[in-house]
């Protein structure tokens, strides 16, 4: 594998693109949209040099269906977009779920709804974690909080997609995509997964393979749904990831992902300086949501504060995972605005002084 000893300075979007190449992805399809366009620009430069395919599709819809085509042949493939574009890809994402196809989809979120804005947001949390299109399904959703994680979770995303034969989404935001940080690209790629189901041509040696999401007999369709949810249960049990920060003695638990977690850590450090026992739970997998860590924390802390760049979406999963044993409050900005460390600190101080009941 590609091993670079030294760290390189990269934008988050570029880190995703280079990491995808390291993960063995040689097919990228996309459509221009801010703030993720650097992924496409990087792929447009790199793919022709390494025998890969970069294709600017006529639409997001076409791009995701090109992804569907390559995924059906068993090769690693990805697309990237930002919020309004992900809505357009929803059709294809649902079909890929129905056909059990692995691929990586990157959402560098911007504010919404509608055309919204082009500044960072986390308001696609519901869309990403609850399915995101018609039908019963999930994607594995990974939420990086640094350029390094943008790269690492991209590789992990491909590995998980192949392992579980499903789509993985990197749920980033405009800040993660645009900011530059030093990155080490020295990481391991998981073992290659055999894909006997792929359409590679029968070579006249086997019965034909069919990649399909149509099951007209309801009994059969129901069976595929139950089987898929058995897989989901296994993933929920085995793949949930969560960073715990200063949680050992915490009486207040801030929870945040992505850029919100970076802001929250600053606020927590300042609160600790003031003697407040506060920590952070940072879900790295948004689906599966790290329920166990939250359930455990709910027995120790007196309040959760969910810091989000949305009107409060992850907070619903926090309440479910903690069974509302203690209050869960929201500290948020929306529409492309980012909470300041001062805003989060204020919420922590308020909680420490008795908080919201």
């Amino acid at each position, binding site marked *: 594998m590609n091993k670079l000893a030294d760290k390189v300075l990269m934008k988050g979007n570029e880190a995703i693109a280079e990491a995808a190449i390291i993960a063995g992805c040689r097919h990228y399809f996309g459509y221009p949209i801010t703030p993720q366009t650097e992924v496409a620009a990087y792929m447009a430069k790199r793919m022709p040099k390494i025998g890969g395919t970069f*294709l600017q599709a*006529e639409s997001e819809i076409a791009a995701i*269906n090109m992804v*569907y085509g*390559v995924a*059906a*042949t068993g090769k690693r*493939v990805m697309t990237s977009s930002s919020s309004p574009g992900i809505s357009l890809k929803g059709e294809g994402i649902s079909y890929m779920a129905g056909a059990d196809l692995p691929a990586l989809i990157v959402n560098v979120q911007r504010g919404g709804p509608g055309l919204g804005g082009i500044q960072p947001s986390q308001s696609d949390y519901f869309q990403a974690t609850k399915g995101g299109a018609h039908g019963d399904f999930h994607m594995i959703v990974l939420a990086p909080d640094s350029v390094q994680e943008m790269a690492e979770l991209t590789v992990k995303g491909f590995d998980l997609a192949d392992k579980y034969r499903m789509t993985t989404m990197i749920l980033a935001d405009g800040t993660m995509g645009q900011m530059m940080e030093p990155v080490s690209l020295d990481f391991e790629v998981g073992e290659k997964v055999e894909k006997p189901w792929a359409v590679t041509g*029968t070579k006249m040696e086997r019965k034909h393979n*069919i990649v399909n999401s149509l099951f007209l007999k309801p009994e059969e369709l129901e069976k595929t749904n139950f089987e898929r949810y058995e897989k989901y249960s296994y993933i929920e049990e085995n793949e949930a990831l969560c960073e715990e920060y200063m949680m050992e003695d915490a009486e207040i638990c801030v929870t945040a992902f992505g850029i919100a977690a970076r802001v929250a850590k600053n606020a927590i450090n300042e609160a600790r300086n003031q003697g407040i026992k506060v920590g952070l739970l940072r879900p790295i997998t948004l689906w599966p949501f790290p329920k166990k860590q939250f359930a455990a924390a709910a027995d120790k802390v007196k309040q959760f504060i969910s810091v989000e760049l949305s009107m409060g979406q992850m907070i619903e999963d926090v309440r479910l995972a903690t069974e509302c044993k203690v209050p869960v409050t929201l500290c948020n900005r929306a529409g492309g605005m980012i909470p300041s460390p001062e805003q989060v600190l204020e919420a922590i101080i308020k909680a420490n002084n008795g908080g919201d009941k």
Partner: protein
Amino acid sequence: MVVFDKPHALADVPMHYCPGCTHGIVHRLVAEVIDELGIEGRTIGIAPVGCSVMAYDYFNCDMIEAAHGRAPAVATGVKRSDPNNIVFTYQGDGDLASIGMAETVHSAARNENITIIFINNAIYGMTGGQMAPTSLPGQVTQTSPYGRDVEACGFPIKVCEMLSQLDGAEYLERVAVNNVKNVKNAKKAIKKAFENQVNGKGFSLVEVVSSCPTNWGMTPSQALKWIDEKMIPYYPLGVYKDRSAEKED
């Protein structure tokens, strides 16, 4: 001595098509061509949404079921994944010329090296006979119960004529399968559309003027006659583009 047999590429299963429907004929022609070119082992077919949605069960090559209208995009992915794949889509008029128009036009503009079999029967069959982008002016359908009013819902789209304006497309021909002579011509066109791909020439589309007795409200023989009397005058048969032949001239 066997003088007539089922093509190997055509699966030995009952098809669900209505009596008098010409899908069966076109499936057979495609399968014969796959056999004759010896490409079944590396052919990947893309089925559409519509009456031929279950085409994935009717061909013995590897198959994919695409979302409505998206077959050319899926085919693009499959072809780009491995250019040695022979990739064909099989699409109806609603799929190709309405919901999937962007995918159709842009795959042609890119001269994507794929083969498209386009069934034009001027109606949405699977959903029970609604007005299609190719329904004729005045044609009565479930959603044009007083006849297609071109003032209100516009004119039919002539796909071959439209795509012939694109520099990208390699080969465009319109054929019909309503009599023996036309079926033979259709076979030749379909074969050329696959040969073009084998020879790396690019985007080849064969529009097949077809019948839908069930939703036209006709007997099978009336439907075949209607193709001659109504469909072909509006959709003239012939070669609309053949870039290789142009070069030879």
